[in-house]
């Protein structure tokens, strides 16, 4: 039998062939039945209205490619709604970590609505969405994460172009369902955009009615390999492993030519340089848009820093120097550059996607830093966008306002970091930031952002319990629990909701059950600010001490000494529990952050 790492290596190529997927399905099943000690096993349930064997095989391969060994449960054919609603079903007994729901347009749309008016269609769509919300709630309460497929419309029409104007046409029902389901799912559900996948392949190529009628298979199996990276995007969203940073090379990657040799005006960029120049510029627009929507951009290039930076002075350069949160140019190797970038940005190496036109560089990075996703862009700028986009590296499951503010915040962090080099000491530096903070009880609307932080915060995360929005709802309703969030702004940027804390009243004290903070606001005394507020709230609730808890994970060593730094005394010898008595002076919790608004917990 193959080992997990051998299997992972086998499945690393793209796209996977149908036979490879189906063969691997059996091998993964065998491996998961008797896993190697310490293997990262997770239970994944797949439930849908049609034949699931092939899609579940592709899901198993995708999960292996993400470094997790899945134990897969396939719900009985056609009975997925009952399987989810009945909490004694096989699916619930399996206790999945992740459930994948695979509906099909044929059972979700209503053929009798074909001539119905807008109102009747809206009512029917609303009822369908409600049914899914009920299913998600049941799955969410059982502490599982949820991934669902969007619907793909059939290729035939009933009234030609007029179908687009008819609210009840099947195409419009599918469109409305996709839109409303994604809206209702919020941060609770991650989506595999099957409609987008089918359209990018071509819906006639995608569909195969012969397979549907003979075997109840919803699409042509030739495309099963293309499904795998799409699923991985959704998996990363629920696992909290979505990529956060795009690190790019410069010469022949952001522009044609070598700035050190050709000079700024010799670079091929923009329409004056024909197809190649236009393609490089379109790629720059794409990269800048990724930055605008919250991906952190960074440069890692073998160059003289001054000469490299001058490339952005090209009149056709869409990207400017301050679009980047980190700028690493030197003549040493890129592995060192990437290390400095993750250090500067305070992010994990595994949240980095690195792109370069030179296969030797991507190969070196892949070998030395296997956690980094290194993409060889090739030599043809016309293909760059597609090569990056194909991996779904930056897929998000929901959209929050903080995502758009992030680049400004990271650009600000770089400026703040530059000030820190100038500032004579840390105290005057922190003072000069003019920080304003507030700690408060999050509203229903803000819970989505809290859930997002729970999913993706790895470093400043004391217990990595990863509460889902469902869990948070329940915690908010529990009078013995305290759910707090913190916002921080400084003179460079509004960092938004960037820290959260869950406290539980126990044995006369308050235990900090979960505490996390975005790396954007590390080392700014925000932890002192939160703890001081928490101490007041805990005292109001009659607690006489605060119990801190630290559970080590592969990534949270940065907070291993947080509690002793905050004046807690060890309770257990293993570094897990820490105690700080209340009712004593808390001068040691003085901060450089000013209260933004009156507390309203």
């Amino acid at each position, binding site marked *: 039998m193959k080992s997990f790492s051998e299997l992972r290596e086998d499945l690393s190529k793209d796209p996977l062939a*149908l*036979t490879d997927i*189906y063969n691997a399905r059996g091998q993964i099943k065998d491996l998961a039945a008797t896993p190697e000690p310490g293997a990262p096993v997770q239970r994944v349930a797949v439930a849908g209205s049609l034949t699931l064997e092939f899609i579940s095989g592709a899901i198993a391969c995708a999960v292996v490619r993400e470094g997790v060994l899945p134990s897969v449960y396939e719900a009985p054919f056609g009975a997925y709604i009952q399987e989810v609603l009945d909490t004694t079903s096989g699916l619930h007994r399996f206790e999945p970590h992740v459930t994948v729901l695979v509906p099909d347009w044929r059972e979700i749309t209503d053929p009798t609505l074909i001539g119905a008016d807008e109102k009747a269609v809206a009512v029917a769509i609303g009822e369908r969405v409600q049914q899914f919300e009920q299913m998600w709630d049941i799955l969410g309460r059982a502490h599982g994460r949820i991934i669902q497929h969007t619907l793909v419309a059939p290729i035939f029409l009933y009234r030609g172009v007029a179908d687009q104007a008819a609210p009840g046409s099947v195409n419009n029902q599918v469109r409305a369902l996709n839109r409303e389901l994604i809206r209702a799912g919020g941060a609770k559900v991650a989506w595999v955009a099957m409609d987008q996948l089918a359209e990018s392949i071509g819906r006639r190529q995608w569909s195969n009615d012969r397979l549907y*009628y*003979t*075997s109840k298979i919803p699409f042509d*199996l030739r495309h099963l390999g293309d499904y795998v990276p799409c699923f991985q995007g959704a998996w990363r969203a629920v696992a909290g492993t979505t990529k956060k940073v795009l690190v790019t090379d410069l010469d022949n990657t952001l522009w044609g030519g070598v700035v050190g040799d050709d000079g700024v005006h010799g670079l091929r960029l923009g329409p004056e340089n024909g197809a190649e120049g236009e393609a490089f510029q379109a790629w720059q627009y794409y990269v800048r848009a990724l930055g605008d929507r919250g991906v952190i951009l960074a440069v890692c290039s073998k160059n003289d820093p001054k000469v490299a930076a001058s490339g952005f002075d090209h009149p056709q350069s869409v990207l400017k120097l301050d679009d980047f949160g980190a700028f690493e140019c030197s003549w040493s190797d890129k592995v060192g550059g990437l290390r400095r970038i993750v250090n500067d940005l305070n992010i994990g190496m595994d949240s980095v996607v690195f792109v370069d036109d030179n296969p030797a560089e991507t190969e070196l990075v892949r070998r030395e830093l296997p956690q980094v996703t290194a993409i060889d862009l090739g030599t043809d700028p016309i293909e760059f966008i597609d090569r990056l986009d194909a991996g779904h590296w930056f897929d998000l499951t929901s959209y929050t306002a903080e995502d758009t503010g992030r680049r400004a915040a990271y650009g600000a962090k770089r400026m703040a970091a530059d000030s820190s080099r100038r500032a004579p000491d840390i105290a005057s530096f922190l003072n000069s930031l003019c920080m304003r903070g507030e700690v408060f009880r999050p509203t229903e609307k803000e819970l989505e952002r809290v859930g997002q932080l729970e999913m993706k915060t790895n470093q400043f995360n004391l217990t990595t319990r990863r509460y889902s929005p469902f869990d948070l709802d329940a915690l908010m309703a529990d009078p013995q629990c305290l759910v707090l969030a913190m916002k921080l702004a400084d003179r460079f940027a509004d960092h938004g909701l960037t820290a959260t804390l869950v406290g539980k009243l126990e044995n006369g004290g308050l235990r900090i059950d979960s505490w996390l903070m975005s790396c954007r606001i590390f080392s700014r005394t925000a932890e002192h600010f939160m703890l001081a507020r928490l101490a007041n709230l805990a005292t109001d609730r009659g607690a006489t001490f605060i119990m801190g808890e630290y559970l080590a994970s592969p990534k949270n060593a940065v907070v291993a000494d947080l509690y002793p730094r905050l004046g807690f005394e060890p309770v257990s010898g293993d570094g897990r529990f820490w105690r700080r008595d209340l009712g004593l002076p808390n001068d040691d919790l003085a901060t450089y952050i000013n209260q933004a608004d009156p507390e309203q917990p």
Partner: protein
Amino acid sequence: MTDELISVVAKSLGVDPTSLSEASSMGETLGWDSLRQLILISEIERSFGVKFSFQEMSDATSIALLRQLVEKKKIT
């Protein structure tokens, strides 16, 4: 031709080509079940540029039968 068909079938079933003969058939060959049949048909269609009807798809359950069908389709 012989080798090509056998190798496509072997690859689709995930078995060694030398373990297959003209008489190999669904139900009697290890791994050749109704789901494998779908993979097999998909791979044969792609490799030989032919298309089977759903009746042919469910009838062509041995290497000999698959060969007859592919040869017939390739001529017409």
